[in-house]
């Protein structure tokens, strides 16, 4: 028998105002002062947004903000990248949702899959930003040779197609993750080119799969198992390498990227490259070997103690000198190297936090089972510690994303730096500074806000499953 809760007493708007705005005399006083103040501010902002603002500076240069000086004839690469990333995103979300469903079923709980609309609603800031872009794009009178609505619509369709990965039977759940990783790499290389040297990321992914997938359990000899796994990895790596050598079509390297595209890519590349380094640093700092611990600690504290901009200057002026004479690295390569080394120190601290928060009993349980230290670390400690620090890692990604704006100081034309081109144009020489800055701020805000919301949600979910 079910009982329904009594309906809450009807609350009239007057009640609501009395309770929330005029609870006592000083609350009322503040409300009375704030309402006209906020009204005036809102009036001035709306007036600026719709009447006085010279938004031409943004509207005319919309493409410049998005892709900067990326060659115009190669824009199809960016669009293909967007489509493939949307597909990978959809597969990832679908697989994740299906994996949650698996867990819920295992625990004997019901599970209700959220709809794509809910996902979009969660990321309302991004939706708003893209709508703003579309709004500007429709009023653009310089002519577009690609319909922006088609691009956005296509990306949505690709995401929806990818989301169907949740229909995969449970046996092949991991195929979803594999597809996500593969498409992320392919999407990246659609722009950077499938040249012969680009086989490494896919070889790592498929090599890892081969390592896990070879049926070696039936063999008793450890050496034989090891040899079989090695052979499997070697075969896969050779195949991947051969495919890349056969395709070998160069693309547009990151030296030619700019605009919002560069901003997003630089932060993603830096965090991906920084993660293994940060993990090693964290393990070294927690190590019982004093030499490793001291070196890791010094590195982490020095990097965390100086501002990123001084490191970037160091990178621009010095990094070339640190390598054998004649080595030339482009400005963006140097910046990515510095940002990687920089975020590795922060990631190390985050991972260390996760390791420290883990109960000592986990380690002892592993020892009681007779496991050696490396398997304990790999199979017991790290999976738990790394899961626990995912929200903090997203936070680090957000902060790296925001920090990538510093590249504009060292004359790299990322999202903020593109303004320099715009304000060098005859029409906008010394006007509309505020308009372009507000647009850039909205762009950064939309991405950072969506990601921070997502990380808060992850944090809540992790706390529940604890």
């Amino acid at each position: 028998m079910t009982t329904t809760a009594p309906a809450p007493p009807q609350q009239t708007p007057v009640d609501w105002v009395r309770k929330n705005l005029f609870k006592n005399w000083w609350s009322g006083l503040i409300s009375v002062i704030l309402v006209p103040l906020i009204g005036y501010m809102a009036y001035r902002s709306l007036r600026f947004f719709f009447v006085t603002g010279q938004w031409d500076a943004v509207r005319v240069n919309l493409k410049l903000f998005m892709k900067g000086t990326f060659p115009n004839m190669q824009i199809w690469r960016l669009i293909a990248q967007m489509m493939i990333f949307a597909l990978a995103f959809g597969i990832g979300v679908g697989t994740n949702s299906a994996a949650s469903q698996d867990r819920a079923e295992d625990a004997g709980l019901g599970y209700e899959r959220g709809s794509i609309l809910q996902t979009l609603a969660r990321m309302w800031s991004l939706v708003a930003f893209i709508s703003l872009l579309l709004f500007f794009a429709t009023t653009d009178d310089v002519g577009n040779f690609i319909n922006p609505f088609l691009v956005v619509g296509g990306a949505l369709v690709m995401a929806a197609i990818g989301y169907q990965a949740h229909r995969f039977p449970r046996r092949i759940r991991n195929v979803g993750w594999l597809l996500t990783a593969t498409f992320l790499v392919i999407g990246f290389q659609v722009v950077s080119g499938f040249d012969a040297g680009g086989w490494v990321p896919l070889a790592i992914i498929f090599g890892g799969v081969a390592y896990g997938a070879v049926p070696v359990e039936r063999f008793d000899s450890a050496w034989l198992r090891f040899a079989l796994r090695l052979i499997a990895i070697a075969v896969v790596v050779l195949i991947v390498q051969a495919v890349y050598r056969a395709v070998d079509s160069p693309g547009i390297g990151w030296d030619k990227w700019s605009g919002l595209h560069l901003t997003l890519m630089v932060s993603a590349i830096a965090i991906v490259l920084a993660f293994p380094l940060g993990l090693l640093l964290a393990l070294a700092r927690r190590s019982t070997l004093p030499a490793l611990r001291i070196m890791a600690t010094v590195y982490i504290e020095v990097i965390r103690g100086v501002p990123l901009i001084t490191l970037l200057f160091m990178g621009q002026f010095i990094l070339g000198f640190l390598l054998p004479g004649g080595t030339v690295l482009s400005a963006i390569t140097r910046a990515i190297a510095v940002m990687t080394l920089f975020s590795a120190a922060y990631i190390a601290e985050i991972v260390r936090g996760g390791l420290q928060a883990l109960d000592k009993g986990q380690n002892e349980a592993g020892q009681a089972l007779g496991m050696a230290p490396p398997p304990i670390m790999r199979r017991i400690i790290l999976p738990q510690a790394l899961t626990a620090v995912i929200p903090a890692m997203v936070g680090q990604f957000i902060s790296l994303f925001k920090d990538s704006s510093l590249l504009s100081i060292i004359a790299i034309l990322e999202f903020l730096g593109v303004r320099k081109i715009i304000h060098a144009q005859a029409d906008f020489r010394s006007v509309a500074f505020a308009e372009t800055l507000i647009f850039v701020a909205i762009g950064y805000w939309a991405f950072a806000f969506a990601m921070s919301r997502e990380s808060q949600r992850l944090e809540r979910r992790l706390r529940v499953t604890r």
Partner: protein
Amino acid sequence: MTTETQEPQRREVARPPFYRDVRVIRVVGQILAVLAVVGIGFWLARNLISNMNRLGISTSFDFLFGPTNTAIPYNDEFNPRSPIWQMVRVGVKNTFLAAFFGIILASVMGLVVGISRLSENWLVARLATFYVEFFRNIPPLVIIIFFGAAVFTNGPFPIFSESWEINFPATDNNLLIINNDKWGIPGFTQIDDLLLFYIILGIGFVVGILAWRWRTRVFEQTGQPHHRVLWFIGIIVGFAIVAFFALGQPFHMSWPVISENRRRIDGGFIVNWGFMSVTIALGLYTASHIGEIIRGSILAVPYGQSEAANAVALSASQRYRYVVLPQAMRIALPPTLNQYLNLVKNTSLGTAVGYAELTALTKTSVGNGRPAFQSFIIVMGVYLVFSLTISLVLNFVNRRMQLVSR
């Protein structure tokens, strides 16, 4: 029945072969790691030196004593012929000034925002949430450039497009002049060497701290009101006044005066637009982070404390002032100090608006041909000293807190 304790058999423990002996592996592994790091470091250093020699760049720190050859914006006292280390000193001072005022702004604003987010007034809470979510998710550099390029200099918000003067009541002295891109406020003009004055002030500071501790002890033993803040400030002000007259008035007040063509401000202390951009932008940005810390700390104080305060009939403001906030501050202090550290490091973004802080000055001097490596090593060293000092304070505070909270 007695059980005989059996003498454990002393068995020769066969040591594993050396390549599987943990003790050997540990030592060898560490030696290898150190060798690898030292080797890479040595290789990099050798490349650096050979490359610098090849290009004819000096590898010594002698350049510090060569002339600067550039003026520092908004600093008329700086002589362009004075050596580079003087320029570094000015840069450190400017970094410190921006950080100091930024920290004050961030703390006050953060406290207000943090408390407002928990307000029962819907409007106040919403406004504070909006503030936090807005500023926290925008790069500080964008905010700094916004203030620099759109608020204080050109753009649609020419707040200070014409000059205003605000007089000190009943005199002709200007308390504040707001001109195009700079503010003038009353300042001091130095006449004699101030070293002795600073020394006496330092002694006053130490005496003030001693008095603070004495008043705390009296309060703890007798329950008399301690008034330790008044004692502390009173002693320092007293020392300052005595030193001022004893040393024969080594400085005097100077009031800002606007020039005939209303372009220049003479006398007083001049606040330029770069300083204002950096300070206000970083203050607002960091306040959004501190606000979240304060809010979290207030929520972390057990609700029973508030109920207890209610039970002894404290008013809402007394409850905050005497029960909740002191405990919340203890939780909030370590992360807040971290935010202060971030703020200090972020002052280096003043480069983007031409504020003459350490990084910007160094960048200019490197652009004028000074060796980049040595220059930036000095800059990094200065920031590292700032950071390590704050870390030390943090550790000290953490220890104190742990003692207090048992």
